[in-house]
């Protein structure tokens, strides 16, 4: 087991190293941030002074070594735009994204599971066709369009929902969360629902497919033959078996939702990390872009590592020898 974890850790480090190179050099070949900020009156000596002050006059590989050196001390640099440590900005805004993603996940499950079960139980009934049609739409209609339509309908025309921003927050374990105030939930509803749509569609489809498969399996037939109530069969035997793939897929999807809730956050002016990333790209705030991408890489690497370890605990074949099993 220990050997397995060490191996995976080394792999993770390698991924991280490759990613720092890609991200750092990738970001550094686009434009020059100084020209975006500089006033039109700032002449060449003035520009040169700023470039020097920001360390952009040094060769790019030298900048990279400085960056790597600082990274190992936990310092991912200061944001050009804000002048504060990039990581502090990320930590400050991460709770907003986390709660948005979490709510989206919950909505996807609460709505998606029952719909999927209904569609799986009576696949030819018209309700099932409606449900599957809905999931198809949720998959294929662009998220930003849905978001804008929701704003127009629920905020502007009906006036029920706030169009922008996050509601009142309360501090929970040092993070500001809006999940526990009425105003917060009111603001959260539309962006979370919009963000949940794709996950919801996935849950519906996975549940339905799982239902179709499991309902005809021998152990369900056997359970029925034993005279167990249909309700108990569904909630205990069927559910338990179809949940495994759903949880696996959603777990993977969740990381992506956190990392790239960009679109929803921009539409609803949600003060999360996704919107921060977009703003940073627009003005080439290199340290902030790099810090965020590195942060996402670390998050994914850790999530994968945890999944791998869990799998290896559950399924000995994984740790015994890769693909040979």
């Amino acid at each position, binding site marked *: 087991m220990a050997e397995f974890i060490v191996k995976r850790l080394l792999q993770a480090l390698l991924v991280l190293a490759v990613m720092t190179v890609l991200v750092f050099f990738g970001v*550094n070949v686009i*434009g020059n*941030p100084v020209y975006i900020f500089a*006033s*039109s009156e700032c002449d*060449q000596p003035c520009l040169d*002074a700023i470039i020097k002050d920001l360390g952009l006059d040094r060769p790019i590989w030298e900048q990279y070594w400085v960056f790597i050196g600082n990274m190992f001390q936990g310092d991912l640099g200061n944001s050009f735009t804000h002048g504060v440590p990039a990581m502090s900005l990320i930590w400050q805004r991460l709770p907003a994204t986390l709660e948005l993603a979490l709510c989206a996940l919950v909505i996807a499950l609460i709505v998606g599971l029952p719909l999927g079960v209904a569609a799986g139980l009576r696949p030819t009934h018209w309700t099932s066709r409606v449900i599957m049609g809905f999931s198809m739409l949720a998959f294929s209609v662009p998220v930003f369009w849905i978001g804008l339509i929701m704003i127009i309908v629920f905020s502007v025309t009906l006036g029920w929902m706030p169009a922008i921003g996050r509601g009142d927050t309360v501090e929970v374990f040092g993070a500001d969360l809006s999940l526990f105030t009425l105003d917060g939930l009111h603001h959260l509803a539309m962006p979370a629902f919009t963000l949940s749509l794709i996950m919801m569609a996935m849950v519906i489809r996975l549940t339905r497919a799982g239902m179709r498969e499991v309902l005809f399996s021998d152990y369900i037939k056997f359970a029925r033959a034993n005279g167990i109530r249909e309700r108990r069969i569904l909630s205990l035997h069927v559910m338990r078996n179809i949940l495994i793939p759903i949880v696996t897929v959603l777990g993977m999807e969740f990381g992506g939702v956190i990392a790239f809730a960009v679109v929803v956050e921009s539409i609803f002016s949600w003060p999360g990390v996704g919107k*921060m990333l977009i703003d940073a790209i627009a003005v080439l705030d290199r340290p902030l872009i790099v810090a965020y991408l590195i942060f996402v890489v670390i998050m994914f690497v850790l999530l994968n590592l945890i999944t791998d370890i869990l799998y290896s605990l559950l399924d000995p074949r994984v740790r015994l020898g890769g693909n040979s099993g």
Partner: protein
Amino acid sequence: MNYRMSWFLAAGLAMAQPAIALAQEVLTIGVRSEAASMDPHWTQLSGDTQVQEHIFERLVGLSSTSQPIPGLAVSWAPINETTWEFKLREGVKWHDGEDFTADDVIFTYDRLRAGVSGAPASPAFQLEKGGKQWEKIDDYTVHITTDGPYPTMAEDLAMLPIIAEHAAAGVEPSVDFNTGQAAIGTGPYMFEEYSPGSQITVKKFPDYWGGEPHWDQVVFRPVGQDSARLAALLNGDVDMIDYPPTIDIPQLVEDPNFTVSTIPADRLIYIIPGNKHIEPFITDAAGNPMVPNPLRDWRVRKALSLSINREAIRDRIMGGAALPAKNIVPPGFFGYVEGLDADPYDPEQAQALLAEAGYADGFNITLHGPNDRYINDARILEAVAQMWSRVGITTEVDAMPRNVFFSRLIRGDELSMPGFDVPEFSIALTGWGTVAGEATYTVSGTLETYNAATGGGNGNFGRYSNTEVDARSVLAKRTIDNDARRAILEEAITIGMLDYAYIPIHFQVNQWGMKSTLVHEPRTNERTRAMDVRRVE
């Protein structure tokens, strides 16, 4: 106090709270760009300065048409060829109750000259212009000397927010301002809260020297998405927004619940033709670069200008919100030339001029420009390309995000290709804001021959060069007498623009949308400020 009594008190306070909140006059503004820092010397972005202007003031203020007015200085005058005397306002208090004196001015300028470490765009260059030196004469008098006669002193100092020595000495730039610790100013509003991505709030400073401010609290909420910002106004999340989408302006105007305020901006949108002997993006029918570059012929540049239908761009792309131009500063600005009107749309004459210059068969160009910087910039590029193609100049558009565009416009491919540190584009659309309300630096920046040593032609990315213009621009920079300088500037502008140094399209028009219960005095310099907004009586 016993336990029960404190409970009663707490309950009483809790009940009193909403009553106070109701009586508060709060103005919520939805802004397109968020302020990135509360340090007024950190950037020069208008999203930052417009919020900072509530907190910090300058020696010289700017009127709604960007003309200098007394700020923290009550008066200023040259006392000899190279010295300006500024008399400071007495009785001004900092937000923490300390007195404002000349020491704060000296401290501020010293901080800027020493350099604000890490600042991506400190306004310190304003102090380098003319080689300014400063000296405190007494608590309310400051002398500023320059290397030679220097006319635009007030305009320069109008760009430099004064910070408090007792609050800002030794603090960490940006960081300590964002927490509010060093964000102590003399302005009408005090720093209250800065929450990145979510909102910035300032509250009334009751002891403001200019009288009690109108609003108890002002909230700035960043809403980058145009349509979301409009939706926030329509459903009442915010009271006012900047940059309402041009396409939705008629809807706002017709709705009795909302109103729109409008003023021509100081921002000129124009096209810069390249003047190098050979330009890579100007090619003949076979695709080879042309020698010499036809844009060096003023008749060709004039033809390009005549073939642009500025009215069509204004009406069909800008929703009517544009001021077709040939002038380089908007009406009301120092240096605006009366009678220098936008070129008419005249494709026949354009074709005749092209034929006369020997390009009857036209040629091919690639027109570069940003697609996320100016109002409807990408659509303007497309329209111009079609108009030019119609007179025989086959035009291809290459629009790109501003983070790529400006680096290439100013310095070409310097990062990826050493040595390519000259403007890259052969012809490009860009914008220029005359922030100071005065044409001296606009003439020097865009019309003068490029000279890295003097800073002349700093924004002259087409490398236009005309000795007639240069002589006048240099003279204007040394002429203190306002009438004489205005005459010189008007000459320089007229010569340059009749020679088609570049091709102006229009001045942008600034617009704000707000509830009809509000009245707003718009500003040419695009700033959105609570000081300009009142409730309708």
